[in-house]
């Protein structure tokens, strides 16, 4: 009995390995459902994209990427210029991811003068600004660092939505964290802010399901897709550069 069982077991092990070895070598099928460990935002990673010529097609949806290594910044749905960004300018966050700090560094890089950086600005401060740049994306570590609970941050985001939707201020929604700032928690913030946007700036990797481009089309607002976060220098220079 013991011997038979051991032999059976060995066969099962060998068969399982042999089966997969014949079935596709060491490369798993690209159609394997995407699954990854949770990101800092608590959601799961979206599927990967594969390069097809200059543009590329996402393996999980019909979205066709507009940007590429050779065409790094693409603006659609109209134009957005320096005239659309009256001062004073506020840079803030909803979700408290590190992207807002990167946005701050980018603003400094392009020589933006005279803007206020306050990642936890209260809703009632919105009335003081002509242009509000909101870095969207949630991070549990960021929320912890800011000492804000997820619920309080959602309430703050809702209050900001209420404050800006009827105001004259220009709202720029910036999503700079790419795919890692998508997923359930981040998308709660993304979905709250997108209807308020007068202009959207997104690292295209984070738009592989068309969330941001669809919102731009639905709301009739311009959107700038950028290949990597460093390419935000181009639109930011045009809008806020010295």
């Amino acid at each position, binding site marked *: 009995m013991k011997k038979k*069982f051991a032999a059976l077991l060995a066969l099962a092990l060998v068969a399982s*390995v042999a089966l997969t070895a014949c079935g596709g070598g060491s490369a798993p099928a690209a159609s394997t459902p995407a699954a990854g*460990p949770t990101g800092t935002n608590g959601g799961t990673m979206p599927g990967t994209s594969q390069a097809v010529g200059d543009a590329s097609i996402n393996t999980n949806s019909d979205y066709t990427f507009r940007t590429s290594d050779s065409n790094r910044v693409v603006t659609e749905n109209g134009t957005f210029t320096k005239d659309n960004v009256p001062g004073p300018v506020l840079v803030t966050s909803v979700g408290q991811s590190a992207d807002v700090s990167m946005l701050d560094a980018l603003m400094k890089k392009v020589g933006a003068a005279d803007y206020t950086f306050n990642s936890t600005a209260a809703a009632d401060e919105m009335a003081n600004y002509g242009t509000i740049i909101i870095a969207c994306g949630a991070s549990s570590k960021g929320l912890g660092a800011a000492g804000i609970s997820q619920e309080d941050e959602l309430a703050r985001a809702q209050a900001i939505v209420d404050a800006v939707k009827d105001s004259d201020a220009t709202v720029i929604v910036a999503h700079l964290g790419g795919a890692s700032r998508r997923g359930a928690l981040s998308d709660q913030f993304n979905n709250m802010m997108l209807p308020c946007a007068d202009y959207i700036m997104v690292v295209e990797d984070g738009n592989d399901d068309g969330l941001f481009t669809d919102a731009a089309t639905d709301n009739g607002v311009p959107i700038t897709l950028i290949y990597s976060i460093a390419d935000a220098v181009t639109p930011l220079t045009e809008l806020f550069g010295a």
Partner: protein
Amino acid sequence: MEIELIVFLVMLGVFLLGNFLFKLPVSLSMAAGAVAGALVAGEGIPLRHLFEGTFVYMDTILIISTAMVFMTVIQESGALEALNAVIVSKFYKVPAVLLVLLMFIIMFPGMITGSSTAAVLSAGAIVAPILLQMGIPAPQTGAILAIGAIMGMAAPPVNIPAMLIGGGVDMPYIGFEGPLAFLTIPGAIFTVLFIGLRYCKNLDYEKIKGGLDLEIGKKYGIKLYIPIVVIVVLMVACRMLPNLIPNLGMPLIFMIGSAVGLFTGKRFNAVKAIREAMKTTVPVLGKLMGVGMFIQIMTLTGVRGYIVINCFGFGLVVLYAAICIVMPAFGAVSSYGAASVLGVPFLLALLDTGDQVVIAAALSFICSLGDLMPPTALAGNYAAQIVGEKYSKVLRYCVIPFIVCVLFGLFTLLKSRSLGFLT
């Protein structure tokens, strides 16, 4: 055919040949498999790696050795016999309750230490004579011990496979208590009642009484139980009051218990008893060393990565099938090995399907059942040894509870989203 597959087949082949054809002990067969694998992979005989793998379970080896000494001491001193007599005489009227209580006693050391071997060796050895006297035949008793120990190993608060799986994806060991209790307690109750109840529905105390030594308890009184009390108190106190009780460690606790046991009951030849205890333990220690070597060489030669990467090629249905078959089967090498080699990629592949903690808990539960798999079968072999049977006979009675537990684990995996409230 990829070189990794060839290496793996050679390792398994040499291991099986050594064990079955040349009748070598499991430990030496595993060592031979590891050496052959390294040779085929072009590593020569990597002594450093073979050594490193050999000593990876040093802590467990010390615990098992000292636990075995302790068990021998309380057996020889008469404490076990006395304890049996007390428990049976108190609970014989309600056999189902008695069985469930005894099952929880078997599980307890496993819950605390995370080791099925510790459970079998300590509580298992205490409970086994009671089960036998209740009329449960030896193979069935062995099956109850083996599965009970495994349920203890998988039960909260300490479940090492779950820690290994969680550690692989940066998931803290938090919130596992609920899902693990949900998996193990029904599994344990089902097993003990399914196997045992039919034999002891109508316990005839007068009949059993004949097999009990009621005198030894009377002769030495409460003093007999001091070693067991010392062990339990020290084990619990070290965990509950870490800042007051110095760090003793399980081996030292067992040695203290053994030393106390020399003076609390019947006199016996300690040196002879300990020598006998170690003699029966050495093969198991050897197995652990062999397992370490085997996994180390699997990692070194890329076999481990090869197995994992091929798991990702599965569709979801095949994946579930693989979880139910390959993961417990890997227990033939080591259930801890199954958790770290297979548990992590399976968890990665299933993350999208539901609650991560519940999935990890269910995977660890299925992994733990691998401790029944021969030839290593740590829990099983020791359980068989305690009841004086061949493991093959014991294993026969484990099959149905094993299948039920695996299916329950699968059910938990499939329903992990709805079971998220347990975390």
